[in-house]
């Protein structure tokens, strides 16, 4: 699913974020990426969900080198990746239904399928009764569940979550993590970045530990 060979990532000012990253993530696996703040978790995830690109090295997603993608290939690959953000990134003036439907509008799906899939995704996260609400009217946990619904509504092959429980209390965090694990049991490859040790211990999955931009597998 994902293979990385000697990946380096630098930012302006020659700041090194990732150094010599080599990894292989199998299709259908569940992987935690952990490490202290500034260790490079978010940078690595940004490379995986194609928000940024490596400064050097090769990153293959679904056997495609991310540095050699055309604009159309990039758009197509992004449509196969679901992303859950720590700060939810919901569009505040769109209601719950429209926020979840956003990826399907972009995929140019027919209206009947959009409706079907949005309700199915909202049902899955238990918020089918709140379609008309706007994000500011929802609690943090509910907003994150909407974020998950938006990520899974297009049936992604890869689900990437960047600190999905960072802004939630423990109970809400467990609810969200249960959903991500459930998605994994349905065949979706899931990668979660978190520094919450309790959650990592609770779910007992593969853990990639990042320290100063380098991977230490546990």
């Amino acid at each position, binding site marked *: 699913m994902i293979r990385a060979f000697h990946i380096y990532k630098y930012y302006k000012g020659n700041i090194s974020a990732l150094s010599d990253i080599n990894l292989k993530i199998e299709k259908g696996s569940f992987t935690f990426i952990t490490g202290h703040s500034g260790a490079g978790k978010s940078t690595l995830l940004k490379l995986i969900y194609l928000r940024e690109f490596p400064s050097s090295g090769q990153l293959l997603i679904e056997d495609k080198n991310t540095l050699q993608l055309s604009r159309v290939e990039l758009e197509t690959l992004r449509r196969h990746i679901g992303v859950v953000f720590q700060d939810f990134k919901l*569009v505040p003036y769109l209601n719950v239904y429209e926020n979840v439907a956003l990826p399907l509008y972009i995929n140019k799906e027919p209206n009947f399928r959009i409706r079907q899939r949005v309700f199915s995704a909202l049902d899955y996260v238990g918020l089918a009764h709140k379609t008309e609400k706007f994000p500011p009217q929802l609690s943090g946990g509910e907003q994150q569940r909407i974020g998950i619904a938006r990520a899974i509504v297009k049936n992604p092959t890869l689900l990437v979550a960047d600190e999905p429980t960072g802004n939630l209390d423990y109970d809400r965090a467990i609810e969200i993590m249960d959903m991500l694990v459930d998605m994994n049991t349905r065949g979706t490859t899931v990668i979660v970045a978190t520094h919450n040790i309790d959650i990592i211990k609770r779910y007992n999955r593969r853990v990639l530990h990042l320290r100063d931009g380098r991977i230490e597998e546990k």
Partner: protein
Amino acid sequence: MREAFFIKRAYVNFFRNRHNNFSSIINVAVVSFFALFLLFILENAIGFVEKLISNNSAIIILKVNSSPDDEKVLNDIIQGEKSIESFRFISPKEAFSELNTAFSLNTGSIDIEPEKILPAVFEIRFSKSLNSEAYNRFLKRLNECNAFKEIRINMDILEMSFKIKRYSIFFRIILYIILCISSFYILSNTIGLNLNNNRREEIELVELLGGDYMDIRIPYILEGLLVIGIGFGLGLAVAVSGAYLFIPVISSVLSSKVFSFSPVMIREIDVIAIFSILVLSGFFGVVRFIRRFIRGLYEENSI
């Protein structure tokens, strides 16, 4: 559904950024007003000169004792000339009779043969389509004709009309270029100002969800069109009102007891041309800005 979604994004953001959009609407309105009003003045200047030419008909004087065949050749040339609206042949006898009538002369007892002392003439009236090329071509053909002696016309007015028409084309081109640049930068800057953090995140989100350039641009293009549409509407309303107020003034200044001039209103073709230019260049302004913005998303920090 998808279309409604784009329209909603444009509509909501238009009102969220109403302060920036309002100042852009005023800018577009001012630019549209000046463009329309300048063209209104220009059209009336050209119309006035055309009226002067049309009122100052030319006289083509034939050689005395020209043969009927030569007169016919000249007649055919005049008849075939597109830039002549109407013409009249005046024979020496008719001219003599008109002179007698005009000056109340009694020449009945005098033995005069008008053909020997007066030339025949053609009185011609040029059409509005006359330009310097057509006039010179016509003059060349007249010179090739045996019966032709000279043409009498107010050359100052004719040359003035040619100059004004020539300069009016340059003026229009320059005006349209200024409009293109203004509209391009007004919309480009408006969208730039409207790209606050929320909207930057929205663009980033649509990008990450696999949206293509159009998915990102359409709401901004619609928002830009709304700014242009309202701004142009305001500019047009003010320009038309101004033109209505100006028409009696122009009419009274440029008319006398023997000469009347009816000013023309702002032409529909100018309205359509200016609106199209504003929309097209505004469209490219938005498209270019968003493309640069998306490129910047990846280049701002990374190396």
